[in-house]
């Protein structure tokens, strides 16, 4: 008996039904071949076949639209139940949050660039950064308007051509995906194209056109493309309209498969280039030599187009939404400044000076990173702390290495297992782990075996929902039931271990049996690999995550079974303090600086070291610079943190003495409350924050600035180079904000730009004597040749003794003799000594 079920729901996706969520839904529905599944958008009455991504996308379902799912067919009850379960549980979270793009009206142009008066065109910043190169205009990929078959059409033959082209194109993509040469972002985009290339609605339409109208395969592809692109074009969501390019990309490949084509989508770049296009297809982007690509300028293509997502993953400065790109011509030298969403079409000397200054800052930043890259994080008394990174893909390993990480302390493998309808094969995992090992170039990579269950579920494991998933069936607890899955993963890791230094880590261990089980499995696989003469690292380390408090008290018994421990503070904290972080009524009690928790950490580290086990920490607690005295004081061997935090942690280590830290840590462990621990840390912070208000490197007696804009940028950059600000552009804006109240030129050739700002980490005074006098709009209209820039760190309370220095300086400036000395003293040393004397520093 045919049955019909209906289910009403409201679209929960913030970006509506675009290709990615449609892909997820399609994959669930595709499993029920005997049922017809449709989805109607009640807000516009469009009905989609749920087995077609294009059709689903075309229904233009936006966040909040009411929809009806209809399932029809014989015995379709189970199908209905499964799909509804998906819509309720997985569907709301199957999309990534997309970054927001600033609109044109918010565009801020740095004052120096504004003063340079160069012609520029405006767009939106999609991937920030700047680059200079010659314009390469890429013609829009156009499908021919029609195809002349030249010979009589035989529908059977045309249908076969279609099947062959689709099969070939799919196999091309599959080969690319398996080649191990694509980044994970490239792979995701290619997977989406793979689904489009086999979309049922699209292929049905193509076949239908061939059969009913007797037209040739190419003509049918073109007409089907036009049909679907009309539907997509009508969509209100830009995200959906952008999918036209993906469809076009696939169609052009199919045409090429059938008819061959001289025009290749390979774009050859010779020398630094800025690629200008109406809309670049992902294939075109992938084909380009990214080392020659200085920037991208797209007329269309928003923040969510696959090409922009690819550009972001490669860090290519990209400006989109440029309305009038016709002013650009091939070979013209331009600068794409995506930080501000502009393209400068004609440079002049002043703008060149601006970009030279920006370039110097970039190089400086690179040099600072280079300094860390080769040096371990070391405290003032010479104790080292290994600083590693947390990653979820092999590509991130490369980023971690570039960011100065000494290895990967946590490779979460769940990404490989989630968001798909079958487990990844051993081969697929092997490729990923091998890439990770190679990218790390001999540095350790700790791969955590899959931690599924709890809040992380996958459709192909039969894990039922639980009332209390964090205390339920997850982590190492599911391994016996899914032994095959674990063996595949261990085998993949072992095989990849031949290409670098991999280590294995087991999550959520609560008793020894779980460890002995994985160990014996590992030994069996090693023997098996030896029989098959496959290479692997025979001394590969095995470790566990310390997340469940019970394991803390059997560390002695673990010795001999494992080689290392890594404290997973997020789960350890919630289990130890019995706090569900998601529960608002108790989340304030989730305190990573609870003295009891610190005491537990002390026990873990001390016991581990007593038994000669290496012990690290991954989890949020490790990544906060403010915790550094506690982490060093606890005596951890390693911390594993997010990639951007690596450099910050490394840089700060030298500020501490490990013995001081031990004292601080011991005081914290015996503190009465987390609040008291915070006070102990704050006290240390105040003591360490003493940076002199002025130093030699903040004095320049021959500053090369040609106008007020440059002088203010120069002072901001000076503070950046002296590690007093991380955000020179923000600091510059704060100076200008004050300048807009009234000019800080005070006559006598002096100007005192100043601000109270969050952008600096220490109160600072810069002294600039200029090579040439500049106009400042001073009180007496005389040009300025001495600039004294003052910055006060915002958030200080009145009564701060350091601030007295500024009022003293201000008072001195009113005196002729003081100004005369600043103008006439011979060298920087003399100026510094004079200021120190006058300001009683």
């Amino acid at each position: 008996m045919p049955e019909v079920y209906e289910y009403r729901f409201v679209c929960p996706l913030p970006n509506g039904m675009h290709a990615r969520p449609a892909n997820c839904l399609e994959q669930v529905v595709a499993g029920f071949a005997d049922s017809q599944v449709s989805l109607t958008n009640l807000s516009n009455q469009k009905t989609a076949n749920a087995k077609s991504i294009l059709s689903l996308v075309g229904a233009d379902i936006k966040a909040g639209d009411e929809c009806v799912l209809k399932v029809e067919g014989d015995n379709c009850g189970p199908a209905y139940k499964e799909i509804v379960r998906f819509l309720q549980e997985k569907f709301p979270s199957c999309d990534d949050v997309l970054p927001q793009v600033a609109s044109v009206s918010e565009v801020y142009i740095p004052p120096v660039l504004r003063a340079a008066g160069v012609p520029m065109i405006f767009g939106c910043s999609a991937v920030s950064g700047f680059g200079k190169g010659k314009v390469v205009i890429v013609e829009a990929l156009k499908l021919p308007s029609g195809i002349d078959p030249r010979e009589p059409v035989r529908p059977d033959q045309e249908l076969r051509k279609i099947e062959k082209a689709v099969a070939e194109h799919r196999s091309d993509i599959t080969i690319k995906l398996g080649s191990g040469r694509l980044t994970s972002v490239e792979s995701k985009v290619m997977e989406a194209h793979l689904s489009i290339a086999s979309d049922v609605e699209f292929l049905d339409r193509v076949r239908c056109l061939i059969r009913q109208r007797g037209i040739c395969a190419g003509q049918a592809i073109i007409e089907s493309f036009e049909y679907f692109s009309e539907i997509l074009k009508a969509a209100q969501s830009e995200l959906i309209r952008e999918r036209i390019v993906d469809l076009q990309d696939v169609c052009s490949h199919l045409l090429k498969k059938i008819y061959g084509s001289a025009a290749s989508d390979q774009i050859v770049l010779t020398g630094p280039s800025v690629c200008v296009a109406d809309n670049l297809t992902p294939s075109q982007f992938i084909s380009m030599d990214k080392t020659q690509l200085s920037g991208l300028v797209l007329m269309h293509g928003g923040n969510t187009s696959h090409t922009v997502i690819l550009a972001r993953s490669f860090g290519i400065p990209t400006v989109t939404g440029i309305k009038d790109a016709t002013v650009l011509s091939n070979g013209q030298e331009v600068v794409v400044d995506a930080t501000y969403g502009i393209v400068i079409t004609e440079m002049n000397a002043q703008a060149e000076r601006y970009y030279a200054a920006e370039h110097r800052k970039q190089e400086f930043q690179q040099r600072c990173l280079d300094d860390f890259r080769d040096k371990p994080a070391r405290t003032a008394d010479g104790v080292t702390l290994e600083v590693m990174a947390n990653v979820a893909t092999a590509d991130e390993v490369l980023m971690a290495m570039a960011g100065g990480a000494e290895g990967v302390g946590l490779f979460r493998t769940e990404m490989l297992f989630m968001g798909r309808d079958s487990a990844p094969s051993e081969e697929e995992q092997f490729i990923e782990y091998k890439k990770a090992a190679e990218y790390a170039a001999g540095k350790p990579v700790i791969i955590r075996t899959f931690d599924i269950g709890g809040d992380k579920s996958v459709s192909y494991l039969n894990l039922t929902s639980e009332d209390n998933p964090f205390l339920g069936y997850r982590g190492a607890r599911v391994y016996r039931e899914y032994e095959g899955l674990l063996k595949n993963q261990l085998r993949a890791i072992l095989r990849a271990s031949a290409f670098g230094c991999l280590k294995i880590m087991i999550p959520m261990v609560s008793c020894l049996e779980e460890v002995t089980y994985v160990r014996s499995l590992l030994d069996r696989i090693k023997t098996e690999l030896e029989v098959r003469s496959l290479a692997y690292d025979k001394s590969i380390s095995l470790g566990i995550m310390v997340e469940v408090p019970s394991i803390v008290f059997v560390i002695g018994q673990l010795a001999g079974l494992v080689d290392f421990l890594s404290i997973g503070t997020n789960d350890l904290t919630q289990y130890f303090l019995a706090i569900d972080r998601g529960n608002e009524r108790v989340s304030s009690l989730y305190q990573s600086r609870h003295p009891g928790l610190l005491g537990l950490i002390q026990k873990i580290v001390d016991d581990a070291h007593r038994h000669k086990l290496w012990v690290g920490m991954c989890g949020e607690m490790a990544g906060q610079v403010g915790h550094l005295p506690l982490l060093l004081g606890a005596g951890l061997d390693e911390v594993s943190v997010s990639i951007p935090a690596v450099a910050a942690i490394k840089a700060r280590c030298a500020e501490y003495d490990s013995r001081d830290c031990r004292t601080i840590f011991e005081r914290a462990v015996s503190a009465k409350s987390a609040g008291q621990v915070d006070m102990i840390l704050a006290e240390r912070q105040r003591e360490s924050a003493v940076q002199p208000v002025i130093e030699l490197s903040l004095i320049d007696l021959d500053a090369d600035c040609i106008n007020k804009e440059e002088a203010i940028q120069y002072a901001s950059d000076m503070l950046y180079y002296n590690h007093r600000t991380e955000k020179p552009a923000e600091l510059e804006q704060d100076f200008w904000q004050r300048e807009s109240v009234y000019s800080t030129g005070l006559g006598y050739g002096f100007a005192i730009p100043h601000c109270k700002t969050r952008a600096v980490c220490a109160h600072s005074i810069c002294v600039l004597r200029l090579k040439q006098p500049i106009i400042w709009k001073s009180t007496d209209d005389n040009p300025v040749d001495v600039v004294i820039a003052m910055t006060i760190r915002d958030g200080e309370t009145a009564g701060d003794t350091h601030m007295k220095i500024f009022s003293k300086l201000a008072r001195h400036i009113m005196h002729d003799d003081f100004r005369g000395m600043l103008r006439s003293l011979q060298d920087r040393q003399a100026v510094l000594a004079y200021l120190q004397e006058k300001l009683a520093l």
Partner: protein
Amino acid sequence: MKFIAVTACPTGIAHTYMAAESLEKTAKELGHEIKVETQGAMGIENELRPADIKGADALILAADIAIENSERFEGIPRIEVPVQLALKDPKSIFAKVPNRS
């Protein structure tokens, strides 16, 4: 003559103190007595006490923002000027002395 003054500027970092210094310096040159209260980033310094206020001939307010505790000065002849004037032409301020009513 005996002056009292209050200086205050938007950020309270520089002009408040430059103006105070300038007023003190100029008063000395002109042979006046003066006490200047600064209301800057460090709060109120050199605060004007009732005794200072009582004996004053005039109040100079060199401020670009509303000052605190202004009710203290009721009934005192006052000269209100922008902070910048105290830097640019302080003598002109002292020339503006109003007559005590």
